[in-house]
């Protein structure tokens, strides 16, 4: 079918949109869009500080169901505290001139767990010593944002990049004026550093070869907007690092292919929000088929990707990067994964070099 050809063309050419075979299938407005030159970097190293936002999916889903389902506001759910962890990633970028930049993605959730993983990974001391250049918040979801205090108490002046769609509760969190006994979230340490709010219309270029793209999308649990990090690695191609990727892996790559100058598919890391709670849907099979046509060389996935999706994707031939057993050194283990035939997740403590 012609749409299948469209995807194939997208992966094969990966170049200037006007010159590719996808032109006829894209509306005139998009075809005329100016491509973004984000420059190039030499390499990217991603450390999984914590990808375990919850340790037991059934418990997490029970909390959501008991509160009224997936449309209820995440600030209005009495989360089971013993089940929650958080999502944090550390990204170290080496520039072509040898200089380095350090980026923290997201701030975790439960304070005790977040403090624990920050210390264990060394990111905590980097924050204490102001060695982190910027904090990028992927989105406002509880497991990526509610642990904000663990970061700000170490480095309140840290420059921060957030989507421009935060709700008032999120803004209060940033101001250090939020306390919620129901969801058990609070922050009394105000953010004092530079705050950049990224909208959907303009890509935010942080460093050569490093950019933030925000997607203004509605998300479950009354959240709006998610942004991802895009890296253009010299001689390799474009890699993405995501928190949850609620915008969708293929939609994100599709955007990159159509908007990043010299786009060449290379890699992805992070949550891909597919079988987030180890549940299946026929749409997930579509993503595997579509992803195979995208031409990625490395896929490091974890968090809300869904273990069963990662396993099925690997079985179907996608380049899923296997993790190590390092996560077993952490004080608490998730219920999903241990005992599986392969470690299809990059779990806590794992490193992916791009």
């Amino acid at each position, binding site marked *: *079918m012609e*749409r*299948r050809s*469209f*995807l194939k063309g997208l992966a094969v050419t990966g170049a200037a949109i006007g010159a590719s075979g996808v032109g006829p*299938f*894209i*509306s005139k*407005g*998009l075809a005329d869009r100016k491509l973004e030159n984000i420059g190039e970097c030499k390499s990217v190293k991603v450390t999984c500080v914590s990808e375990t936002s919850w340790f037991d*999916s*059934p418990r997490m*889903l*029970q909390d*959501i*169901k*008991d*509160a*009224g*389902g*997936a*449309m*209820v*506001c995440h600030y*209005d759910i009495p989360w089971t505290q013993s089940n929650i962890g958080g999502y944090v990633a550390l990204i170290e970028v080496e520039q072509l001139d040898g200089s380095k930049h350090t980026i923290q993605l997201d701030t975790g959730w439960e304070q005790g767990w977040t403090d624990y993983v920050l210390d264990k990974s060394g990111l905590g001391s980097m924050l204490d010593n102001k060695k982190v250049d910027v904090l990028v918040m992927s989105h406002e979801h509880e497991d990526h944002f509610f642990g904000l205090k663990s970061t700000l108490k170490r480095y309140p002046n840290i420059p921060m990049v957030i989507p421009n*769609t935060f709700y008032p509760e999120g803004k209060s969190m940033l101001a250090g004026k939020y306390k919620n006994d129901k969801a058990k979230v609070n922050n009394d340490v105000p953010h004092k550093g530079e705050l950049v709010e990224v909208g959907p219309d303009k890509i935010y270029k942080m460093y050569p070869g490093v950019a933030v793209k925000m*997607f*203004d*999308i*509605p*998300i*479950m649990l*009354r*959240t*709006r907007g998610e942004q991802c990090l895009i890296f253009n690695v010299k001689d390799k191609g474009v890699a993405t690092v995501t928190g949850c990727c*609620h*915008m*969708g*892996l*293929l*939609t994100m790559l*599709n955007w990159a292919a159509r908007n990043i100058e010299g786009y060449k598919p290379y890699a992805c890391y992070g949550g891909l929000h597919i*079988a987030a*709670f*180890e*549940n*299946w*849907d*026929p*749409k997930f*099979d*579509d*993503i*595997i*088929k*579509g*992803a195979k046509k995208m031409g990625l060389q490395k896929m490091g996935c974890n968090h809300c990707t869904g273990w*069963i999706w990662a396993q*099925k994707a690997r079985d179907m031939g996608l380049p899923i990067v296997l993790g190590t057993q390092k996560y077993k050194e952490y004080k608490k283990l998730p219920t999903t994964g241990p005992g599986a035939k392969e470690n299809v997740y990059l779990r806590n403590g794992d490193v992916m070099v791009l």
Partner: protein
Amino acid sequence: MTENTETRWLEERQLKNVIPQPFSGLLNLALIVVLSTLLFYYVFFSPAGYMRLYTPNLGVALVITILMVIHWGMDCFDFWPFNRRFLKETNPLVKGIVLLLFYVVIALLVMFVLYNEVIGRLGPIFFSGPALLAGGGLGQYAQTARENASYAQIMMNTCIIFFTILWLTSFGYAPWGKSGKTTRAFSVWIMGMFLAVIAFALLFYPHIAYQFYPAQIFMAASPWWSDWAMTISSMFHFGWIVPALVLLYWTNMLWEGRPFSLIGNPFWRGVVTIVVVVLAGIVIMFASNRIMDWYFGTEAFEGGSMAELPAWRWNHVAEMFMYMAVAGAVLYHYFDNWPKGFSLPVRAIIRTAIAMAGGLVMAWLYYALGPVFLGTVPGIAQEGDTSLCWTVMFLILVIAHGVFFDGFPFKKRA
């Protein structure tokens, strides 16, 4: 069903406006908008309300089940077991409350007893959230088990509504037209369900088999539509069934039975109606997808997400046509199916244009005001979200208000 009254109640009943149009219609519409959005939606469905049934699939399943039962009562059974005297003489407020509660209670029994505790426990387990949960296994957790079961119920009940209305529109009560009211009502009722079961087996069952991990490959064929649909999700079929259903609504309300009623032979009228409506539904779905390509500036593709997700596109066709169905119902029930003059083709075109434009306005209002009044997140294409909960609920209230409550307080029986 003891009466031998041949004229259907809704054909016999005449309403008149308490105050002149358009004020009667506008005031009744305002009343139902306030009631639906501020009271009913907030109490029963809103994520920030009391019962929070919009999970989202549970809420959608509930309103579609209620709509199905109302169609059974109104179209198949001509309000049996309520007799004509009750319908004629009871205070409209009392009658409306009794009828609405009666059908809602039956819907609850269908959903929570028949599906959850009988069919799901003893037969196809995927119709019952509690049964899926009790069975356990990977992915069968509280929220997903309920949502998956609700999805199956939504699709089954949509098929039942479609085929029941399709039969009544195309064949009427044939071939049981000369039988007693009881016989013909039960016959059409059973025929609607029979056809729906076949359609469900062919159009939705493969999706159900593939929504488990691992895919239940010995339970159903691989979804055969994926090359056309760009997805193996059965939303593809929902995307043409709902517009086709809306065409049936419009045929009966806005087009006064035309053009199909021009065919004299009941058999050929039936065949032509079925073929035309189904084909038109499919054409509408694909044409709507092209319109969305233009509107969103991007195409849906296999594996895409948000507005690029094919399954969402097909569902969005259904959503948009349900807005238009609601607008058509408002015109019919509140504004006396205006205009009454002109030739039938001209007034049918005007009414259809009003329904389509009204539907688009309603959709715009939903997405613009939903975050304020309904607790939704700004934007469209939210994962799992659908406007169908609100639109079907609104349609139910418009039908109930116009039919059960006789349009009280700004209309009354003549």
